[in-house]
């Protein structure tokens, strides 16, 4: 069931009531309720997926305890390797097996040894596998590093892995942050729950109004890109930028807001990334949970930026290519990652990657010309890279981009949805004026009359209902 479905609208209140009323504030019962609900939520997609998540949880639960009880370093490494191989192995098989099989076939054919019948399976990609495998890996790695003590509370651990608000599309949580919350007694905090509901509402607006409406134009433009002018293709690329932002950050907002209803804090995953002044800042604001995961578990162990320039370049390319590949089994994602590596390298080499760490126009209402220019260029670069992310193949992406930068860039766009572009502009304005907050409706926490606050909520609900487009699948469910 997706967050914007009737099934979820029925599921959530039932779990909420069970959690706060039936559990009698008993931590173990609350965790059990969350575990059962989360397995029910996940099993709704496909009951077979439950076997995988249970297996992954069992392996890491056991490995965590045994690593902690083992003093011999070689055994500790072996156990960690077991966890890594299991989780990455699951991910590799379900997500990448066919990609490797087909590409090996192409490679062998290229070198004159064709394989006529490559072993390709009809594999269903379990929803959320890319997210929960990384989440459980962070648990065993942190235990190995001595940053975390393993838990012997199996229910808490299984609930941490399968926690339904963030199970299928993140944010990817660390055990040091989320698992510890499963060991704490929960008290209902009214203000937190109310703001959680606001965040859910704003997330639904971003997903249903912004993302799903963008999808209508994006799908048409990308499907028929060869018939459109450069100006239309540029609009298509930018609309996709808003689609993926609305989709993914909307999902994260709903996940975070839902967690707050149960007294849990999830880490922020998006911090108004399109107000970034350079690519380095963009990557501190976009899919924060994934980029920090790669930073802490791949980039820093490789040496990070405290090394020679050659090693730095190697590390950056590794991180971004792997990050791109994490998104999907297609060369386009690798290309997307490579492009971002090329974008960010100058900042790292010149040590200017931390030039913009504060909020843009922090002490002003509006940005100055320099900031507008910086944000515009960053958004344009990001949008161009998104073309690879969205395209079916690298060839099509190159054709798409070359057409953007042709003479037809200056011809009138065939697709120019004025009203919708106005809506996007207004959306950007709302987000701009709330850029210092956790989410755009957080300002309603300020003391204002009840009728004003509720009026704003009713207007947002009306807009979701009236302007909502045909339901589209969450983009990140495919990862």
């Amino acid at each position, binding site marked *: 069931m997706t967050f914007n479905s*009737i099934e979820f609208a029925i599921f959530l209140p039932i779990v909420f009531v069970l959690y*706060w009323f039936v559990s009698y504030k008993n931590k173990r019962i609350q965790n059990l309720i969350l575990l059962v609900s989360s397995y029910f939520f996940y099993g709704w997609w496909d009951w077979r997926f439950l076997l995988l998540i249970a297996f992954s949880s069992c392996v890491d639960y056991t490995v965590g305890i045994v690593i902690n009880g083992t003093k011999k370093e070689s055994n500790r490494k072996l156990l960690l390797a077991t966890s890594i191989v299991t989780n990455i192995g699951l991910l590799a098989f379900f997500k990448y097996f066919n990609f490797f099989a087909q590409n090996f076939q192409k490679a062998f054919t290229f070198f004159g040894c064709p394989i006529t019948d490559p072993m390709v399976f009809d594999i269903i990609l379990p929803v959320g596998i890319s997210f929960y495998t990384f989440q459980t890996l962070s648990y065993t790695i942190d235990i190995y590093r001595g940053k975390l003590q393993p838990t012997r509370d199996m229910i808490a651990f299984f609930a941490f892995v399968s926690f339904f608000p963030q199970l299928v599309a993140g944010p990817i949580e660390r055990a040091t942050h989320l698992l510890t919350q499963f060991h704490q007694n929960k008290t*209902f905090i*009214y203000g937190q*729950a*109310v703001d959680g*509901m606001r965040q859910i509402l704003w997330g639904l607006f971003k997903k249903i109004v912004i993302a799903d409406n963008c999808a209508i134009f994006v799908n048409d433009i990308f*499907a*028929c890109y060869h018939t459109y002018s450069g100006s239309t293709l540029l609009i298509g690329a930018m609309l996709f930028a808003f689609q993926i932002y609305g989709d993914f950050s909307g999902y994260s907002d709903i996940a975070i807001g839902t967690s707050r209803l149960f007294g849990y804090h999830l880490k922020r995953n998006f911090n108004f990334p399109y107000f970034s002044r350079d690519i380095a800042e963009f990557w501190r604001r976009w899919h924060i949970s994934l980029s920090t995961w790669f930073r802490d578990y791949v980039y820093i162990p490789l040496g990070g930026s405290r090394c020679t320039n050659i090693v730095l370049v190697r590390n950056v390319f590794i991180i971004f290519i792997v990050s791109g590949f994490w998104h999907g089994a297609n060369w386009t994602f690798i290309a997307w990652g490579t492009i971002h590596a090329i974008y960010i390298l100058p900042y790292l080499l010149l040590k200017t990657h931390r030039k913009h760490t504060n909020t843009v126009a922090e002490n002003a209402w509006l940005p100055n010309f320099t900031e507008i220019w910086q944000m515009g260029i960053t958004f344009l670069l990001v949008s161009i890279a998104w073309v690879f992310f969205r395209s079916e193949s690298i060839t099509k992406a190159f054709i798409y981009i070359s057409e953007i930068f042709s003479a037809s860039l200056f011809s009138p766009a065939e697709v120019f949805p004025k009203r919708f572009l106005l809506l996007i502009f207004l959306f950007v304005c709302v987000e701009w004026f709330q850029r210092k907050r956790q989410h755009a409706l957080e300002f309603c926490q300020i003391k204002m009359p009840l009728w004003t606050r*509720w009026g704003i*909520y009713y207007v947002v*609900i*009306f807009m979701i*209902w*009236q302007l909502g487009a*045909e339901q589209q699948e969450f983009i990140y469910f495919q990862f």
Partner: protein
Amino acid sequence: MIRFIYKIVVFTFPILIFICFSEFIIKQIPNDYSYKNEYLTKNAQHIQILILGSSHSFFGINPKYFSKNSFNAAHVSQSLKYDLFILKKFKKNFSNLKVLILPISYFTLFTQLEDGQEHWRAKYYSLYYNCRYHSNLMYNTEVMTSKPLTIIELLIKYFNGENNITVSNLGFGLSYTNTAQSDLRKSGISAAKRHTKNSNMNLLDTNLKLLSNIFTECDKMGVHPIIFTPPAWKSYRDNIDIKQFSMMKTSLASVLKKYANVKYYDFMEDDRFHKVDYKDADHLNDIGAKKLTRILDEIIQTNDKIYIKNLFR
């Protein structure tokens, strides 16, 4: 906690009241589906020619130009599943039915209502024809698939004593009457693209079975089916997928072989239809509908003469 739940309840209460009230009121407003269901319930025994199908027959065949009692029971985006449903629902009452007219368009064998952009129309069959194909809320309520401004418009209509019927008393769609013609070139390209994009080859077998079931039912009832591919403007014909169209014709031919009483006519490139007959590249206007209806009437009369002649051999 109690305060939170209380506020949630108070906040959502007006929304729920609006939804329930709207649902109740909108169902009272007569619409094309409720009208046709009521008409068929009361008058099925008088109907000699029944028209089913999608918008191509809804706007393309005007029963008033038939020489026999006829009724247009087609609806926009109606797929074969619902054509069969309507036929079966009223078959006991079709005591005088002689002919069934059904369009098989370029996309008919490769689509179903629930998979298209107009999937929300499935609710009308549940609500007004008492069809039990769907059990979910979306296809059993008016409000779930309607926008609030549309709901408010309908409520205003209700309180002004207006209805939502857009058909003639014999079921012919009137929305295209006295309206300007669309750009035939652009509408043809976009419709052909849309129909091709929405076509699903995996539905072919299912739709062929449904078509066979329709023919079998007609056979049991002694009804002669006339199926046709509707006229389309050049821009539409030039932009469809030739392979898909050939597959449609081949598959149709394989079914027709088994049913001797079924006649098929392909009007897609019929030069009797001119620019003035079209509302858009794949829909006729009322002038075109009159022409098509008269052509079909002539076919029916000719077939009758052949039938009577054979009867007295």
